[in-house]
């Protein structure tokens, strides 16, 4: 076992991990942060996306030991300080950007990463950026719409589908 220490959602945490412990497992099992989902466990689906040192990564395909000393942000740290939904989360609610909700944490984290590097993405850019996030309810239309709305773009002309 190796001791790892990292900053998760602004809080310093540490724990003893095996070499093979995935970052996703450390977050879920050691830290109780079960908002990060493990869908495919093969780095395809993106339900496990978190931010490590500010960039989106698939936490099922990164070892906890590799995150030693890193800053990690998960879906649990996304809400505003007063507990209300942040602008992306609120847009997902307003535009019905989720159906079963399983993929939603990864979608929100990928959306946050996208908007950080591209504050006003086009629909095409959003769809390309979400290549590694799979929604098995196939609810992509409203997810894309929610991200456009979250970036302050007018989505009234986009029909509900």
């Amino acid at each position, binding site marked *: 076992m190796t001791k790892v220490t990292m900053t998760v959602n602004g809080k310093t945490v540490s724990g003893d991990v095996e070499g093979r412990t995935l970052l996703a497992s450390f977050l879920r099992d050691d830290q109780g942060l079960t908002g990060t989902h493990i869908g495919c466990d093969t780095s395809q689906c993106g339900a496990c996306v978190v931010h490590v040192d500010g960039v989106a990564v698939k936490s099922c395909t*990164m070892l906890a030991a590799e995150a030693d000393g890193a800053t990690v942000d998960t879906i649990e740290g996304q809400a505003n300080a007063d507990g209300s939904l942040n602008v992306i989360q609120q847009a997902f609610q307003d535009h019905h950007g989720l159906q079963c909700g399983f993929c939603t944490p990864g979608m929100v984290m990928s959306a946050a990463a996208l908007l950080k590097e591209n504050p006003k993405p086009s629909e095409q850019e959003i769809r390309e950026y979400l290549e*590694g996030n799979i929604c098995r309810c196939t609810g992509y239309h409203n997810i894309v719409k929610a991200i456009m709305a979250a970036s302050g773009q007018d989505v009234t002309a986009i029909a509900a589908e």
Partner: protein
Amino acid sequence: MYNFDVETPVTVADAVAAMAAEDAQALGGGQTLIPTLKQRLASPSTLVSLKGVAEMQGITRDGDSLRIGGATTHATVAADGSYPALSALASHIGDPAVRNRGTIGGSLANNDPAACYPAAALASGATIATNTREIAADDYFQGMFDTALEEGEIITAVSFPIPQAANYQKFVQPASRFALVGVFVAKYADGVRVAVTGASNEGVFRWTEAEAALSANFSASALEGLSVSADNMIADLHGSAGYRAHLVKVMTGRAVTAAS
């Protein structure tokens, strides 16, 4: 996954020392290796993470040569733009989260027969630098998942001569998004090089007939009359050997037309 120890060296020297452990395996970004470990297709005793080795990070340009540290991520190469065709290639590997972890050294060390970077390295006549030597791309790729790397040898950097014009065309396999066939064309003062990934059972290879034709006339029309043999092409449910052979010519033509 079987369990293993994780070493996190910060210098190449320390990484090489850690690789001396029995059944040690280098870990780049892990975007192929970690899924492989989950499948129990590999069982190293020690993983030596190269991500923290500062001297293997980043990109430096020296005239017409671009040196990319072995632990540099696809996202960093995509954002660089000094060698536009190479950055474009990097920007279409995997997905954004994969590009934030996966590294050029990891991709070249693994030498997946459908990976993108081997085509760029071979078509550019790149030089693969390791902790012990420099290897020309022509000598480096030795078949599917096979390279000139010795046991414990680490790719520390890759140097690309920047061409006058280049382009990479990838025909994606629709499920994996790896290259069903990918062709990288690079035009230099002393001639054109064409490298093909995804197609052959031997891994990445140069299409020398096309190189000769394109060196004389850098136009897709120069490929008319050439054909690619289907012998030893990969055949699977995504495409027959003949289909891949046909695609090699089509994608080469598109790359030449798009080269800038």
